[in-house]
């Protein structure tokens, strides 16, 4: 399977349907979306490492509860650090930062593999990067559509923002709303599916 096919068919959000909540709730601006993606990537690596070390200490029936607690521990630590150094980021993420503890993508991504696999870390990193790229892409697309700008970074008293859509092209504010997010997600998922089908057809044609 090529890299493009991997990104389309096995995309954590549009292919596997994982971690939809932050995609819908936090993708109204590129900076919040990309920060969520970055935190998720970090949590995948930290959670995976911790769970790998603790795997043999717990019997498998309670491992799923441990998985949730490990994620919660790292999220609580992230919350404390973000609140101390980047309070405006904490405000923009709101209740959705602690909610990462029950994120289906993170719970799946940190799941340890039974056999020791050399590519396990590489797989987790790719999955985390896939999620980061997807949420970043949706965030950029939604912000450009809804306000015509792209906000790269927000620090206290300083914002790095570029205007993309100028007159006569006008942004559609509706896409910043929850309803707009759902509609955009539906069409993006359909688009990803169309590309995956098209790519597999091309591959089959080349093989035959």
């Amino acid at each position, binding site marked *: 399977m090529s890299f493009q096919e991997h990104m389309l068919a096995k995309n954590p959000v549009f292919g596997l*349907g*994982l*971690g*939809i*909540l932050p995609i*819908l*709730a936090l993708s109204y601006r590129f900076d919040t979306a990309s920060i969520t993606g970055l935190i998720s990537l970090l949590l995948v690596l930290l959670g995976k490492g911790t769970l790998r070390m603790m795997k043999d200490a717990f019997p498998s029936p309670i491992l*799923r*509860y441990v998985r*949730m*607690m490990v994620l*919660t*521990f790292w*999220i*609580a630590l992230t*919350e*404390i650090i973000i*609140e101390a150094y980047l309070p405006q980021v904490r405000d923009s993420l*709101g*209740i959705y930062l*602690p*909610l990462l*503890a*029950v*994120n*289906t993508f993170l*719970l799946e991504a940190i799941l340890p593999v039974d056999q020791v696999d050399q590519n396990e870390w590489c797989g987790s990193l790719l999955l985390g990067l896939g999620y980061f790229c997807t949420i970043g892409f949706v965030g950029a697309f939604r912000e450009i559509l809804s306000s015509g700008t792209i906000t790269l970074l927000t620090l206290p008293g300083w914002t790095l923002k570029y205007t993309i859509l100028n007159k006569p092209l006008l942004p559609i504010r509706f896409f910043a*709303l*929850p*309803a*707009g*997010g*759902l*509609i*955009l*997600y*539906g*069409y993006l*998922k*359909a*688009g990803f*599916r*169309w590309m995956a*089908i098209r790519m597999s057809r091309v591959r089959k044609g080349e093989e035959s």
Partner: protein
Amino acid sequence: MSYIGLLFTFLFAQNVMLYYFLGIDSVEDMKDHLSRFLIQEGVALIGVCSFSAVLIRTIHLFILIPLGLTYLQTVTAVLIILTTGKITDSILNRLGISLNVFRLMANSLVFGISLLAVHGKYSLGESVIAGLSAGLGYLFAVYLLEVLQEQFKREWIPRCLQGVPIVAVSAGLIAMAFFAIDAALLKRIFG
């Protein structure tokens, strides 16, 4: 806000699934057995939601704030949800009902409504009603989507849009309709 106002807010104006997107991750898992979900898991979900919301709010209000331990809010909330889930599991087992309780605990609706109760500074009574109405709002949204899905089986839909994409687009349109019921208007009507 009054209890009725809160109920209508979480049912329509700020429906937990269509406005806050809480529990939206779990919809895909349960679509094959939705009628069973609505009866059994739905009732359990409402119970867990209300109970954990009031418990988390109580602990936040009477233990974490006075001791200055608010940074432990997330850890405490998840521990409470896990405990509530286990209690629900044992109650359901005694009643002879077997459910995947971990799916209930990992549902973002349970944790999300507790966080909304804490952030919204709800009273204990309001937390119970918030949990109850959030569960009802969630079931209402899931039911609407199920009805739509049944309708879509009889219509021609392009292959790429079949399944989740068309449901998401429809959910967006329902959310837009609910958006017309303004929270401020409800507050004015119900106090």
